[in-house]
Every structure is written in structure tokens, then in C-alpha cells.
């Protein structure tokens, strides 16, 4: 049984009250957050008020929904009315949104308990959570290592049992990679399945909100609750519920392995993924090896387009209306320049500059336009692949969690950070759904993740396959942290 169902039954049976449950989580956050740095903002008043409402409902003998009273967290780029939403950036210091993101609205209707807002790379730009203005979140399996990024805070919190689940966002791997590093489940939905309204944009045509959970069943429950059409997001369509087919047999399913996905991957990671393929074979699925040469272009294509969109999306932080504003300046122009120079971190500035460059007159055709065309080619390549297979199996990341500071060390090439996204970005480039689940550990005991990639709006198939593997193999590694129930 999944974590959410288990806690739901405890609440319904009265084994624990929602307030007790919530208090346990708040206590553990209090105990562990200094070391893990998973949360930027903890919201005990909000959480306890929500918990009280659930307890009152239970006391009246009313039925509660599956997500009702379940303590969870939101990545700090998801807008919450009256609660600081920082994007882990100095430039949003003091900013409190005046409206709720659609996903939070949907979850509020489900009656969830919101424990707080979790850490991330600044504006979701990073692969280790270390570009956060508040310092990086740590890996609950070994705090000398990063939690991954950019949704490192959610992954750290869920991995360390400081929340039952959380919502992250995935632009180039930001849900799946930290989920893999922290040994849990992360689902990046199809572009358009979940409303982006209220998600502070990094790269609008890639961004997608999704759940980070302990297990696949939890991911399905949370996904089904948030994958709804939203009139406020023109690109939103919603998606089919995944729970009804979650427990189905997978016999006869065709699983593709693209050779290109295994090329630049560490041996132990590759071995773990190929072992998983054998498990699937033993369950009656068919494994098909094939070539997807377009994958080689996915990384430059992604970075050009994402940075271009970011350079435009982040133009609004000028110190005039909200957030950080430079203290000393001489006139409006100088105020905007200083605010942005002081308010944005290095990585964000780097991406804004590169994005501005690729859109500039004289370079547009060489970079942006080419990348747009490449994106089309990548979409078509996946379309062709899915004529032959039901899902694609791949590693989530080429390595396991980096040591703290590694990506920004003096000996590390800046490109290495970007290369670490090589397995995750193709999915965002093509707008496909992908789920990362644990499939082993390296010699140091750090989790290895694999991802299942599906056709557009076919979350149900990848979750079904993920669930069956999880049930057969039980690769989740417990940590010493957090709430024990």
C-alpha cells in the first residue's frame, strides 16, 4: 500500500488525528531542516489550521478524501496567496503573491495540509539546488551530497519524510533528477496536463508542475488530482486519470531502449537500468533496442530555447512593483540595473545573458531559429519511436548525487552542470511525460534512478509500468530522517 493510502486509513480509523500528524511533521522539520535545508518557509499556522478543519470534519463523522489532511509541501516557485514565494532568489525578497496557483487551489479543495515552501535552484536554474540564494538542500541519504535540482527541496523533504509528498516543477529534469538522487518517485507530466497558472516561469514552453512522492501509487493519486483543464492557462488540457489502470498487468507491453540514452552514462547506472529491463522482460514485457540520433541535439536545443524564454520571463524583476530593490541608485535606469545585478545570482545572470544573446538581431537565425527547427525534429523522432514502442526506458541521470559544491568547483567545467541534464531534457523538449523511480544504489549507497517516458498524455501507461516494477523490486532505501509512522 502506498504512503498516502496508509496515512489516509490512519486518519479515518482515528489511529492518529490530523493535528497530531501535522505536528509530528512540523516537529521533524524543526529538528532536521537546519541540516537538510529542504524548506525555505515553514507555515505551521496554515498547516495546523488546515489540519484542525480535517479533524473537525472527522469528528462530525464525515467522509474525507484521499488527499484530505495529508501533509505536503510546494516548491517555492508555486504561488501561494499571502505566503512568501521566493523562487530561492534574493530578487523576490518580501514578495507575497496575492493569488494562489491553480495547483494549490485544486489541492486546497482536496483539503490538504501545507507544511511550507521548499528550496530550489534560483528560478529553477540548476541541477543541484546549489544556486539557491538560501543555500542548497542536502541529500537525505548522505548530506555530503546534493539533493539534486532544481526541485531539490521537495526531493530532500519527501526523501527525508519531512512531507508525505510535494509538488515540484520540471523544465529540463527538475522533478525527475532530484527524485532519482533522493531515491524517490518524480513524475513530469505531459506539457499541458497540469496548469502552469501561478508557477513562476523559467522557460514557459518547457515548464510543467508534477508530484514528487514516496511511491508510484502516491504519484498517481496526486497527479489525478492536479491534471485538470484550467481556463486560465491556454496551454492546459488536463489528462486522463491514471489510478484505474495503475495496477494492471503489463504483459505484452513494448519497452524501447534508445542506445543514445546509455552513451554518456556511468557504468553502474547503466547496469542498474539494464537490470530493470530484465525485470520487465521477466514480467512479460518486450524490450526493443533502437536508435534515436536526434537525442544528440536535445541538450543544445533545450538550453538555447530555455534561456531565450528565461531572458524574457525574468525581465519583469525590476524592483518597481515587488521584491528586492537596490538601496542606492541614480535614476530609474540605474535602479533597474542595480536591482537586477544585486538581486539575481550568477547562474541566473548567465542564463539571462545567453538567452538575450541568442535572440539578438544577427544571432537569432544562427541560434534561436535553428533550435526551434531542431525541436520540431526531436518531437517527430519521438513520434516515430512511439509507433514502435509503448514506453521508453532510460536512466534519469548519468550519475548519482554530486558531492556538495562539485558542480561549481574550480576544476569543474561549467558545461558539466548542463551535461548532467542530458537524460532528462529530451522529454521536456518534446513535451512528453516521464516518471523517475529508484532502481538501485551505487557503491556509496546513493540511489540510482531510471525513467519511463511515455506518449503525450499517456501518463497512465508509464505509471502502470513504474508501479509494477516498484512492487516487484522494492528498491526504495529508507533514511534515518523524519516522521516514522
Amino acid at each position, binding site marked *: 500500500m502506498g504512503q498516502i493510502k496508509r496515512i489516509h486509513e490512519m486518519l479515518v480509523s482515528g489511529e492518529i488525528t490530523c493535528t497530531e500528524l501535522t505536528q509530528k511533521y512540523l516537529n521533524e522539520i524543526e529538528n532536521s531542516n537546519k541540516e537538510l535545508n529542504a524548506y525555505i518557509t515553514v507555515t505551521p499556522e496554515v498547516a495546523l489550521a488546515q489540519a484542525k478543519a480535517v479533524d473537525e470534519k472527522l469528528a462530525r463523522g464525515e467522509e474525507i478524501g484521499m488527499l484530505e489532511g495529508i501533509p505536503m509541501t510546494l516548491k517555492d516557485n508555486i504561488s501561494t496567496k499571502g505566503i512568501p514565494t521566493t523562487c530561492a532568489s534574493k530578487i523576490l525578497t518580501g514578495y507575497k503573491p496575492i493569488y494562489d496557483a491553480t495547483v494549490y487551489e485544486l489541492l486546497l479543495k482536496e483539503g490538504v495540509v501545507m507544511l511550507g515552501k521548499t528550496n530550489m535552484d534560483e528560478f529553477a536554474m540548476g541541477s543541484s539546488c546549489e544556486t539557491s540564494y538560501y543555500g542548497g538542500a542536502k541529500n537525505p541519504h548522505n548530506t555530503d551530497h546534493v539533493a539534486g535540482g532544481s526541485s531539490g527541496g521537495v526531493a530532500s523533504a519527501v526523501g527525508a519524510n519531512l512531507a508525505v509528498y510535494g509538488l515540484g516543477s520540471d523544465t529540463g529534469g527538475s522533478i525527475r533528477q532530484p527524485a532519482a538522487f533522493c531515491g524517490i518517485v518524480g513524475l513530469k507530466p505531459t506539457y499541458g496536463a497540469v496548469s*502552469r497558472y*501561478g508557477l513562476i516561469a523559467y522557460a*514557459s514552453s518547457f515548464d510543467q508542475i508534477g508530484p514528487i512522492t514516496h511511491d508510484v501509487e502516491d504519484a498517481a493519486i496526486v497527479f489525478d488530482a492536479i491534471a485538470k483543464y484550467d481556463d486560465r492557462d*491556454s496551454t492546459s488540457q488536463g489528462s486522463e486519470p491514471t489510478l484505474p489502470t495503475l495496477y494492471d498487468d503489463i504483459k505484452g507491453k513494448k519497452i524501447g531502449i534508445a542506445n543514445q540514452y546509455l552513451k554518456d552514462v556511468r557504468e553502474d547506472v547503466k547496469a542498474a537500468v539494464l537490470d530493470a529491463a530484465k525485470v520487465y522482460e521477466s514480467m512479460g514485457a518486450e524490450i526493443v533496442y533502437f536508435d534515436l540520433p536526434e537525442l544528440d541535439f536535445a541538450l543544445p536545443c533545450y538550453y538555447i530555447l530555455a534561456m531565450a524564454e528565461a531572458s*524574457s520571463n525574468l525581465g519583469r524583476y525590476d524592483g*518597481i512593483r515587488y521584491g528586492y530593490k537596490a538601496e542606492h541608485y541614480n535614476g530609474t535606469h540605474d535602479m533597474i540595473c542595480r536591482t537586477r545585478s544585486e538581486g539575481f545570482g550568477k547562474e541566473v545572470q548567465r542564463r539571462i545573458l545567453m538567452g538575450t544573446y541568442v535572440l539578438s538581431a544577427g544571432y537569432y537565425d544562427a541560434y534561436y531559429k535553428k533550435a526551434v527547427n531542431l525541436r520540431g525534429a526531436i518531437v517527430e523522432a519521438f513520434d516515430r519511436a512511439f509507433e514502435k514502442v509503448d514506453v521508453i526506458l532510460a536512466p534519469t541521470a548519468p550519475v548519482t548525487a554530486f558531492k556538495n559544491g562539485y558542480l561549481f568547483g574550480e576544476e569543474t567545467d561549467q558545461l558539466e552542470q548542463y551535461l548532467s541534464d542530458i537524460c532528462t531534457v529530451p522529454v521536456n523538449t518534446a513535451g512528453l511525460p516521464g516518471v523517475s523511480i529508484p532502481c538501485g544504489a551505487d557503491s556509496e549507497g546513493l540511489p540510482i534512478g531510471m525513467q519511463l517516458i511515455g506518449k503525450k498524455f499517456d501518463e497512465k501507461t508509464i505509471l502502470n509500468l513504474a508501479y509494477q516494477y516498484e512492487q516487484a523490486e522494492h528498491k526504495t532505501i529508507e533514511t534515518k530522517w523524519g516522521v516514522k509512522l
Partner: protein
Amino acid sequence: MKYELVAGFETHVELSTKTKIFCSCTTAFGGDPNTHCCPVCIGLPGTLPKQNEKVVEYAIMAGLATNCEIAEIAKMDRKNYCYPDLPKAYQISQYDKPLCEHGYIELSNGRRIRILRIHIEEDAGKLIHNHGDTYVDYNRGGVPLIEIVTEPDFRSIDEAKEYVERLQQIMRCIGVSDCRMQEGSMRCDVNISVRPEGSDKLGTRTEIKNMNSITNIAKAMEYEYERQCDLIESGGAVVQETLRYDDATGTTSSMRSKEDAHDYRYFREPDLVTIAVPRERVKEIEARLPELPEQKLRRYIEEYDIPEKDAALLTRYRSISEYFDKASEGLKAPKTASNFIIGQIFRRLETEADKEAFEVKTSAEQLGEMCRLLESGKLKNNLAKKTLEQMLDTGKSVTDFISESDMAGLDDATLTEYCQNAINAMSAAVNDYKSGKEKALMAILGNVMKQSRGRADAAAVTKKLKELIG
């Protein structure tokens, strides 16, 4: 040397949709600062635009009314620039796939001003400078605009003036904008250059902004034309730059040079989906378009025999032409109604705004009723003017001012009596008439009219007199 003026227009027209282009805030003019705003139109982090379909429809109407081709597929783009009145640091506009292209507006001299494109975009907010501080009001931010871009087809200032007037008429007629230049709901930028007469090469152009009336457009163009001619004559060269027109001095001054031109880094707006315009939708919108001012003008002149000058006045505002169309319904000579409107009603409307509002006490139906009585002879011509003045003063109907007997005219017995009296009294005139002097009958008719105090119908009297004289 003589120089020819070459000019093109870029005109921003605020659309009169009830709500803004990407959110449901009101587009009403004015209001306390920042009261017509929401998270979307002030560009708060995480918000997304939502296309207002009415804006697309209005732009298509504008395109159809100016003979444009309507795109089957259009898209929105981001125009990036940083200015405090633009809260997202980009304006959502259309770059390479505008909704309408390749249209024209025909001028009275028969020349066609080609329209390159019409695209939709959002307006920015406004900066308010006060005692050295600057404030931003975002009420106007997100108000829908269309930008109408012409080819450099203007060869005279008169053509430019007529174009702006025509454009206003068309937009008002189809109901997509009130086109008030003073309020900024219509804003014109003019690209202007000069070249030696006879040359077909384009000279270096300047762009003039900040003109808030047709008079100022004419003045600014005049000034800029002279400035460029003088510059070239004195051996200088025109520099490509953007100029601001100063109403107070009647001169232009430089805003920015070509080197300072923005690189807007246009790219596709990822938050909005493609705008698909099926042909059936275009047909459906076309069918709903009202008769355009140009068509109306031609109908008034050709079918109603109304002088061109009067027809132009009638078609200037939708309110007037609608009034006239209603008043002239069913009349044998619609011109009658036109004459009253131009001759008497217009005199009571002093300002341009009064004419546009066209608020008169007499309804179009009441004027129509009066014209019908006139046509049937029940209201005499010489009483009409006075009667209409009374109607306009009071708002009462024509029947309130002419008596039952007036309405009925004279009965046959009375008419015969009056005619016989006249014949008896004017034997000399009767003899003249009998000997072939047609004109003599007019004198006898005058006598009858006098007896009837103007109530008799001239045609009926003539007929009766001829009968009696034999």
C-alpha cells in the same frame, strides 16, 4: 528644386471591447490609478495571458472593412523592451504572422493607400510625473490595440488628413473603436521623407510621434516637410531618427537616433496558442459587417441625389448616418431629410463631440413623419422650417404644431370658392392666360393662396383653376 512628400502611417487604434486583451479587467477610460487591474495585467510572476476572442473578431472586422486578407493562422509574439509602464518587460504583439494583410483605403482623388498589415497587441500603462516623482498607472495596460500600418503611399498632407478621417469613419462605423485622438484611443505615427519631384527613389525618412489631432498631424507634416527640404537644399542630409512633435511650438525634436533603435528580440509567445481563423468564421463576420461609410456615401450620392459635401457630413459619424437612414426610410426623396439634418439640426450642434453624440430632441422617426407629411402635401413647404424648429425645441411631434384643418388640407367646395373669387377679381390675368401667357396663372394662384392663408396645395389649386378657366 521641387520636392515631393512621401509618407506612411502607423496608427494605433484602441479597441472598444468591454474587457482587456488577456484578462477580464474593464477597458473603461479613466478611473482611479491602478483600479482596473488584476494579477494578469500587472504581470505578476506566474500569471498567464488568456486571449480575448472579441479582440480577434474586432481586428478581423477592421481588416475586412479595409479590404485586407485575413490570415488563416496567426500567432502572438513577445516584443521585449524594458520600461516601467510595461510590467512584464515585454509587450504581447504580433510579429511575422499578423491577423490582416494587404488591404487598402481609397481616397476621394481615386488613389489607394495600401495597408501593409493590421495586427493586435496590448497597450502599456502610463507614467505620471508629479513634483519630481514618477508614478505608474496600469489601468491602460492590457487594453487591446490594433496597429494599422500603411505603405509609404501618401504624396500630400491633404491625403494624410483624408486618410485619418476615413479611418476614423470606418472604425466608428463598424463599431470597433471610438477613435478619439484627444483621449489617445487613436494615435498616429507618421514616417516622412522627401525626394526630388519625378524621382522614384525613397529618401531617408524620419518618424514623427506624439500628435493628438488631425490638425497637429498636418502641422507636424508641414513642418517636417519644410525642414527636410531646407536641409537638402542647404547641402545637408536627413538623418534617420524618431522625432517628437511639440504642440506648443509647432516644431519637431529628436527622441532617438537610428543607432539607439531597440532590438526587440521578438519570439513566439509560448503562453498563448496559435490563433486559427477558419474561413467560415471570416464569412460569418463579413456578413455581420454594417454598410461601410464609403458604400453609404456612394449610395447617398448616387441613389438619393444628395450633394457629395452633405453626404460626407452624414457619413462622418455612425450616429448621424443611422439617424438619417431611419428618418429617410420610406421617403420618396430621402434628400428631404438630409436637407433638414444638414440645414437645421447641424446648426444646433456646435462641437465635434456634439456631432458625434448627435443628441437631438427630435427622434429620427419624428423627422421621418414630418418629411412624409411634407411629401404628401399635408404639411406645406413654407411651414416646414418653422415647424421643425419648434419640434427641435420641444421634442414634440409634427402633429402638435399643425392643426387638423392644415392636415386635412382644403375641402373641394372651399377650394372651388377661393378659385372662383380669384377668377372674378382678376379678369385681366385670366385673359392673358387664355391668350397663351402661362405665367399669368401664377398671379391667380397667388390670390388663392392668400385667401387660404397658405393652406392650399399649389398643385391642387393649379388643377382647379385650369378646370374653371377651361
